[in-house]
C-alpha cells in the first residue's frame, strides 16, 4: 500500500501547468507555447519516495523545477508542507528552500569550480543558518563522512574528483540542512556503473538514517525501483500512470509503461520480455495530438482515443492510470 496514512504530505500538486513561450516576430511576442507540463496532479508523502519516469520531453524535469519554484507555474496549485508555493512572495520562499534540496544530473557543472568543496557543502548552512564557522565546519565534516568522503577533502577543488565523487559532494550539499525532501534529477545517468551502484546504496541507507524522502527524476526505471516506493509515468506533459513501484513495473496498465518496461535491455534470453515496438517519434509539445496524447504511437489505440482525453481512474488501490482501455469501474479523479 502506498498511501501511508498519517504521514505528512510534502508536495501536493494540483492541475499544474507550465508553458514556455516561443517568441517570434518583430516585437518578440509569444507566437506559440511549449506545453512542457500540461495538467499534472501529484502527491508526495514523507517516507514515500516517488519516481518520475518518462523519456526526454515528457516534462518530468520541468515539473520538479516548478515544484521548487525555480520556474513559476503557469497554472495550478502547489502546496509544500501545506503552504502555498505558487502565490508565495519571493522573499518568503525559504521554507521551501530549507526543506527541499536538489541534486543535478551533471556532476561536472553542478559544483562551482572555484569553490573548495568545503565551501560548496557549507553554502546552504551559510545562507539559512547563523551557525559559527566552527559549527558549520562540523556539519560539513559530518555530511562528507555520510557520503564516505574524507573531511580532509574539504580543502580540495571539484576538478580533483571523479564524476561519481562529485555527485556525492552534491548529495552532501543537499543533505547538510537535513531537508525533508531531496529531488534527484537523473542523479546517476552521467556516471559509470560501479560508481552508480555506490551512490544508489548510499542514497538508500540515507533514506533510513536521516528520514529522507526522494523525488527522483530518471529515465532509468531500475534506478527508480531501487530508490522509490511509488512511481509516476509521464508522457508529453501528463502523468499516464501512478502507483506503487513494484506493482506498476510488474503489472503495468498503460501501454506506454508497458513499452518502457519492454525496452529495457535484458541479459538472459530466457526471460525475454515481449518487446512493445512504438511507431513514430515523440510528437511536439507545441501541438500535442488530440485526445489521448499517446494515441499516435500506441499499439493498442482505437478510434475513440483521438477524440477525448482519458480520465485518470483508480484501477487498483493506490494505482491510477489514464487510458480508455483500463475499464475498471473505479474512482475517477
Amino acid at each position, binding site marked *: 500500500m502506498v498511501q501511508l496514512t498519517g504521514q505528512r504530505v510534502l508536495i501536493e500538486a494540483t492541475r499544474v501547468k507550465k508553458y514556455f513561450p516561443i517568441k517570434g516576430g518583430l516585437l518578440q511576442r509569444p507566437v506559440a507555447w511549449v506545453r512542457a507540463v500540461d495538467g499534472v496532479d501529484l502527491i508526495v508523502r514523507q517516507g514515500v519516495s516517488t519516481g518520475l519516469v518518462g523519456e526526454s520531453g515528457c516534462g518530468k524535469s520541468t515539473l520538479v523545477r516548478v515544484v*521548487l519554484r*525555480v520556474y513559476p507555474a503557469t497554472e495550478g496549485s502547489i502546496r509544500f508542507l501545506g503552504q502555498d508555493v505558487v502565490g508565495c512572495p519571493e522573499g518568503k*520562499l*525559504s521554507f521551501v*528552500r*530549507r526543506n*527541499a*534540496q*536538489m541534486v*543535478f*544530473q*551533471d556532476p561536472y*557543472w*553542478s*559544483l*562551482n*569550480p*572555484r*569553490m*573548495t*568543496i*568545503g*565551501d560548496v557543502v*557549507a*553554502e*546552504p548552512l*551559510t*545562507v*539559512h543558518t547563523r551557525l559559527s*564557522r566552527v559549527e*558549520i*565546519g562540523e556539519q*560539513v565534516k559530518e555530511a562528507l563522512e555520510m557520503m564516505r568522503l574524507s573531511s580532509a577533502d*574539504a*580543502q580540495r*577543488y571539484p*576538478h580533483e574528483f571523479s564524476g561519481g565523487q562529485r555527485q556525492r559532494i*552534491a548529495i552532501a*550539499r543537499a543533505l547538510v540542512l537535513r531537508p525533508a525532501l531531496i529531488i534527484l534529477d537523473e542523479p546517476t545517468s552521467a556516471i559509470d556503473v560501479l560508481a552508480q551502484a555506490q551512490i544508489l546504496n548510499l542514497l538508500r541507507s540515507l533514506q533510513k538514517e536521516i528520514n529522507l524522502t526522494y523525488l527522483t527524476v530518471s529515465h532509468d526505471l531500475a534506478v527508480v525501483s531501487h530508490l522509490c516506493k511509488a512511481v509516476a509515468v509521464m508522457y508529453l506533459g501528463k502523468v499516464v500512470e501512478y502507483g506503487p513501484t513494484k506493482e506498476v513495473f510488474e503489472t503495468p496498465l498503460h501501454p506506454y509503461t508497458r513499452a518502457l518496461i519492454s525496452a529495457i535491455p535484458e541479459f538472459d534470453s530466457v526471460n525475454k520480455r515481449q518487446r512493445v515496438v512504438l511507431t513514430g517519434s515523440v510528437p511536439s509539445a507545441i501541438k500535442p495530438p488530440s485526445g489521448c496524447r499517446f494515441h499516435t504511437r500506441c499499439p493498442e489505440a482505437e478510434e475513440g482515443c483521438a477524440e477525448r482525453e482519458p480520465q485518470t481512474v483508480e484501477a487498483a488501490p493506490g494505482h491510477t492510470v489514464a487510458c480508455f482501455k483500463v475499464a475498471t469501474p473505479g474512482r475517477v479523479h
Partner: protein
Amino acid sequence: MAVGASRSTTLKKLKYSVYLIRKNTLTTVGFSIVLALFLVALLAPVIAPYPDQALGATDMSQTLLRPSWQHLFGTDEMGRDMFSRVVYGTRISLWIGTLVVGLALLIGVPLGLVAGYTGGFVDEAVMRFTDIFLSFPPLLLAIAVAALLGRSLNNAMISIAIAWWPWYTRLIRGTVVSLREKPFIEAARTIGTSPWRIMTRHLLRNSISPVIVQASLDFGSVVLTSAALSFLGLGAQPPQPEWGLILNTARNYFLVAPWYSFFPGMAMVVTVLAFNLVGDGLREVTDPKTRRL
C-alpha cells in the same frame, strides 16, 4: 576565509602561484620588471640624482648634454637631467595605469555582472548604455573633456576611464550569460542563495579571470593612451615629467639629441611589454584547472 581552507592552505596556494609564475621564464621577467617599476616609482626621490630637476627646475648651463656619468640619460633643452625625469615619470605612468584601470573595473564589472545575470530589460538597457560609451573614441572624448574642464592629467585620466569601462562590461557580461545556465548557478538558486550572493560568490570568481588578464594588458595600453594625450597637449602639462609629454618636446630635437627621445620611449616599451607578459602569466595562474592546488 573559506570554511574548508585553513591558513596553511592559503599559504600553500600562494606558494604554488609563485611556483607557476617562476616556471615560465617570460612571465618571471614580466613580473620582475613590473615589481622593479613599482619600486622605482616608490623610491624615485632616492634614486633620482636631481629630483628637483625632475619636477621642473632648470639648469640652462647643461642643455642637451649627451649621456654621461653625471647625467645617465643626458639632459633636455632646459638642462634637466633626463634620468631623473624618466624615473619620476614612472610614478606618473603607474599612477595613471592604476587609477584608470581601477576606475574602469569599478564601473564596468558590476554593471556587466548585473546585466548578465538579470537578463531581460535590465540587460538590454545596460548594454545599450554601454554601446553608447563604446562608440566614443578615447581621444575625442579626452578633447571634449579638456575643452569642458581644462587640460590636466587628472582630466585626461577621467576621460580615458570613461572610454575604457565598457570593454570590461561586455567581457564579463558575455561570460556571465554563458555561466548563468550552468547547474551550479541553478543549484545556488535552489539552495536559496540571494541574487546578490550568487553574483559575488559564484559568478564573479568564475568570470573575472579574462577581465583580470585584460586589465593587465590594458595597463600598458592606458599608459600609451595617456602618453598620446600628453603628446597632443591634452593630458599632462609641462613641466610634469610624463613620458608622452617628454616625447612631444623630444621630437623637435631628434636629429640633434636622439637620446632625448630614446630613453622615455624605451621606458614606455619596457613598461607595456612587462604588463603584457604579466597579463599572459596571470591567465595561467588564475585557472584552477591548470593548477594542482
